[in-house]
């Protein structure tokens, strides 16, 4: 007889119940009976680091290949020539027929999504997050093939997207697939997936630090050195590959600008507010557009074509919206565009992006948002300069800062994009304005939109709520001895069940405190444990109540020690499906030291709660309060 019997095994939720869980998280938790769980495997950091190196190299190559593919499709679609060089679509001479180009691409992508894999829709990062949280970091191998091809077609036919989102997702898929080739735990796969994604980011923009922090902030759901080490290795190697294949310099060539510290600081504060509002406004606009597509009367297969039609019309008037637009971003960052053009680019790119991304094609969000927000920052600086001619703001500086801040605030991965914008410019003077503006923008975005971000809103609509506050696990910090009942009630094994039942039914203060009561032998040594469920069942087989307690209870015990951390104790409970553990001396497993039940473990959390939410009176007010 084992203690586990005191609780029936968990049942499959699919078999009934009045409500079916909406989120995919539910079944993964409940489906497996806790008893099937083997002991946790260790994290093989050395092996994962080597695999991460492989993933990093592959991600670097993927980035290169995707660039070439985009160049190939752009050349075919806009210039009708065969070439692999990445060119801009803005100088095409197609005239009015340019409207048809994106539509063709949209139709192809629509078919790929319908018959290939629906996962290729969207901008990549939410899909990777979803795989981590609900699918144990397993991504289908075909995503690794279809995603880059669909993205190359969508962007090559004029889609206003960046290559980085698809590269991040593809890199993640490659990492996950490599993890699936071997016997790995879900967290090892998660680290490999994040390595691929981070390396993809690093390889696209030549920004190794931002790649690492992006993976930490958006995909890992943990901040540990076991995941940091492989990440850095992958990101470093991807950058090295980028340097070999695409050149040493940063993605955008930015000339030295004067960041105007300290005289421009008040304007930076203003810009921070503006960026926060822009981030929230943009997120809302994107999801509103996506909702509008849901109302369309025909199958989702044709939505990308509809979005592409709108894009084609915009692109006919403002050809700069076509394609990744890295050249336009460079122009903006160097302050080479005039105010009117900036405003047009900002609005046209934003509208083109929400329409085409909302329609469900495949493409990255980063580059277009960078273009819009950089244009906004640049226009802001030029506008302020017109109003206050003494301010002497450098438009390029404001463009860079706005670029980092808007995306940081929209995705709440602020630190990533502070570092990203810094790595783009490699100018230490940019750090201060970047930090100020980004952090203010993030604060405002949190005030306006506390629950979801541009990355998580999509998942929240499917019932998957993402929580991205990393904190130290309180259960790893508290030892069992701090939370146990050091003076637990015990009963002698010879007592009859009837007597004990009587005592509990009359609310004996000591015995009714806990669900389980420890049984001791004559020498006060631990002999077993009996729960109320055991008593009820024993009374059923022996209604006279003469059975000795030791027979009703359990003798095969799982125990814990006072110096163990709560986490270990909880794992024991969960693995054996029991709700309480006797605490015994490490040297003498029969000597009772205490008793720990579920309430004791939960109480550890109360401590944390109090730290968070109980405010103590400050010195200033102490005199007013008795």
């Amino acid at each position, binding site marked *: 007889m084992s203690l586990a019997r005191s609780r029936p095994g968990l049942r499959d939720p699919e078999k009934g119940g009045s409500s079916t869980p909406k989120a995919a998280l539910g079944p993964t938790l409940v489906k497996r009976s806790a008893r099937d769980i083997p002991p946790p495997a260790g994290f093989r950091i050395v092996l994962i680091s080597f695999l991460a190196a492989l993933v990093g190299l592959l991600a670097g190559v993927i980035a290169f290949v995707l660039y070439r593919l985009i160049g190939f499709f752009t050349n075919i679609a806009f210039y009708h020539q065969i070439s692999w060089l990445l060119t801009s679509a803005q100088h095409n001479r197609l005239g009015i027929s340019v409207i048809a180009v994106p539509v063709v691409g949209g139709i192809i992508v629509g078919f790929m999504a319908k018959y290939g894999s629906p996962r290729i829709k969207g901008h990549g990062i939410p899909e990777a997050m979803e795989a981590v949280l609900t699918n144990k970091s397993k991504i289908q191998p075909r995503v690794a093939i279809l995603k880059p091809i669909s993205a190359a077609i969508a962007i090559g036919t004029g889609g206003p997207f960046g290559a980085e989102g698809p590269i991040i997702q593809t890199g993640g898929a490659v990492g996950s697939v490599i993890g699936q080739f071997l016997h790995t735990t879900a967290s090892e796969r998660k680290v490999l997936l994040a390595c691929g994604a981070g390396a993809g980011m690093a390889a696209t923009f030549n920004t190794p630090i931002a790649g690492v922090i992006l993976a930490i902030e958006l995909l890992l759901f943990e901040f540990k050195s076991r995941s940091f080490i492989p990440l850095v290795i992958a990101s470093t190697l991807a950058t090295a590959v980028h340097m070999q294949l695409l050149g040493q310099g940063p993605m955008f060539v930015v000339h030295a600008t004067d960041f105007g510290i300290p005289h421009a600081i008040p304007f930076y504060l203003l810009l921070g507010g503006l960026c926060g509002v822009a981030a929230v406004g943009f997120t809302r606009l994107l999801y509103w557009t996506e909702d509008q597509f849901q109302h369309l009367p025909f199958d989702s297969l044709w939505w990308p074509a509809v979005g592409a039609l709108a894009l084609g019309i915009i692109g006919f008037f403002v050809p700069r919206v076509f394609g990744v637009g890295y050249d336009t971003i460079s122009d903006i960052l160097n302050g080479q565009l005039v105010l009117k053009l900036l405003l047009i680019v900002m609005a046209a790119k934003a509208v083109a992006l929400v329409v085409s991304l909302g329609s469900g094609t495949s493409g990255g969000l980063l580059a277009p948002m960078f273009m819009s927000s950089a244009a906004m920052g640049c226009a802001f600086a030029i506008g302020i300069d017109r109003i206050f001619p003494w301010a002497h703001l450098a438009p390029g500086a404001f463009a860079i800062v706005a670029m980092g801040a808007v995306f940081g605030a929209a995705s709440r991965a602020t630190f990533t994009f502070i570092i990203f914008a810094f790595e783009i410019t490699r100018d230490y003077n940019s750090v201060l304005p970047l930090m100020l503006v980004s952090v203010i923008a993030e604060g405002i975005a949190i005030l306006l939109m506390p629950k979801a971000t541009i990355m998580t809103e999509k998942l929240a609509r499917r019932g998957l709520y993402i929580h991205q506050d990393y*904190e130290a696990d309180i259960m790893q910090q508290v030892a069992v001895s701090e939370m146990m009942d050091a003076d637990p009630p015990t009963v002698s094994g010879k007592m009859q069940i009837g007597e004990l039942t009587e005592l509990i039914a009359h609310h004996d203060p000591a015995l009714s405190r806990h669900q389980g009561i420890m049984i001791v032998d004559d020498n006060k040594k631990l002999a077993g444990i009996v729960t109320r469920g055991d008593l009820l069942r024993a009374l059923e087989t022996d209604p006279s109540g003469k059975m000795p307690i030791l027979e009703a209870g359990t003798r095969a015990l799982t125990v814990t020690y006072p110096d163990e951390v709560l986490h270990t104790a909880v794992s024991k409970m969960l693995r054996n499906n029991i709700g309480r553990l006797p605490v015994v001396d490490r040297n003498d497993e029969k000597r009772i030291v205490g008793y720990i039940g579920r309430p004791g473990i939960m109480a550890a959390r109360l401590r944390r709660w109090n730290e968070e939410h109980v405010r103590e009176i400050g010195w200033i007010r102490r005199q007013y309060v008795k």
Partner: protein
Amino acid sequence: MSERQDQDSFVASTTGAFLSSGQDQVSARASRRQSTRMLRVSLLGIVVGIAGGLVAEGLQRAITFISNLCFYGKATSANLPPSIAVLHWWTPFLPAAGGLIVGILIHYFSPEIKGDGIPEAMSVALNNRSIVKARVSIFKPLSAAISVGSGGPFGAEGPIIQTGAAIGSLLSQLVPSSPAERRTLLACGAAAGLAGVFRTPFAGVMLAVELLVFEFRARSFVPIALASATGTMVGMGFHGADPFFPVITNYHFHPLELPFFVILGVICAGLAWLMSRTLYLCEDYFESLKIWFPLVPAFGGLIVGIIGIFYPQVFGTGYSVIADILSKPHPMHVLFGIGVAKLVSFGVALGSGASGGTFAPALMIGGSLGAAFGSVMHLFMPNASTIGLYGMVATAALFGSLYRATPSAILFMLEVTGAYNAILPVFLVAVVADLAVHFFMRTTINTERLVRRGHLVPEAYEIDPMKMLRVRDVMNPEMETVRGDQKVSDFVVDIAGHECVPVVDEKERVIGIVYRRDLLGAAPDATALSIAHTDFPVAYTDEVVHAVAKRFLDGAYGHCLVLDSTNGELSGMLTAFDILKTKNWELMQELQEPSRFSGTSLLRFMTERKTTK
């Protein structure tokens, strides 16, 4: 007051009233409250940032002032390094005198100023609800200025971090604040202090996140980033925006250097172990001495003075020495000598109980020994990267593995040298060292002290699954119910496994709840309704588990009924055990699964057959 009312709305009465709208209001109110709090903490963070930057500047000036007075006999705060001062017969006794004064301060005024400062700040944040005593903010900088100014081989950063933390904590104690808010402001002060000295805003933020706040989330990140940026601005106001340690890095990607970088990483991890061991060995030895305490730091100071006769570079913070090592080539034996001398004098002096930081010594030891390694390299590969690059890389690796704060170390080194083009070797060596140091030691130089006092220090941050999962993800949707008119004897066996069961009427609406405890004393022919409790706690399917857990704790109950948040129907049971099951999500992440490719699918098929038999 309002919180109390919020609580009440979750206890249903007999009708199982549907209260979901109340729940929405509660969560909306809570998120608004959190946002305004964050705003307040952020504004305070800016104040702390200015104060931290000023303290950093003040302390640095105090150190140079005392150092100039001691080594040059001039009362100025001009930057005159003690390493190139003329040696007098009394020079070796200066650190001893400083040690004596600091010893008296520690012994009679404030024991918490002993040592580095970072472990004390961590300890306060972890165990003391982030309440720092006011005297620390005066005695710590004073003792550090005396100790370092008189030639002690320490840095000013540890003390600045502790003082900044003290200021942050004191400011937050002025106003009503929760421990979490105080911890954030404490970290703000520390970040601003570090960023103020070295003008490294990123590293300030990262170090505060890694060592002091024990979380990585927006509500603490925003104030810390603001404080760090403000502290940097204060520092730049005094010294301009040039990098603190300019390095010349003629770095070109050269595949043959790769293995040497890996070796260097492992060496740095070994050095971190050595530094930490030396310090704690010395400390244990000095603690076993049974003499008047102030004599101990004086004795440590004397040894430093004697070493200083041969290697005057060990005196003081040695920033100028580090800058020199990183920017100019030196002979190998000089570099090696400086590194070993600094290591010994650091261990002896700090172990004897003086007040000073471990940070600058780590920079000097890493810099000089890394540069020495670089010059060995040049014997084999004359066209390898510059020696300064090796010094820089080793510094980052040693700092990262010593504090086990590699991300901070990487950002710090890049910012402090302004050499972004060295990012790849810095990255590589630092993570190799980080990986290797896991095999050398379990604690770090900072946490060792706390572990000895019996505290557990968190090393990793992760999401709390309880805050991510919803009630419907963990509840038990299939439960036994009893009808109100059933007799106890009819259902007692069926439900013996449950601690409680809901009692429903003929339309499956909940009318009460029966606990197992009640059954033990109930007459066999009583109806379920007669022994049922009509007040019972409820939760809704859409609630976050964390919020329900809090109600479980407050109400001291172990189970509740779950109602659907859209229509209020009974959808399941939630017990305390189910709440603990959120941990399962974490545990399942650590399970090994067979590969889905290769021949194992056949194997899996066979094993599945076996288990079903």
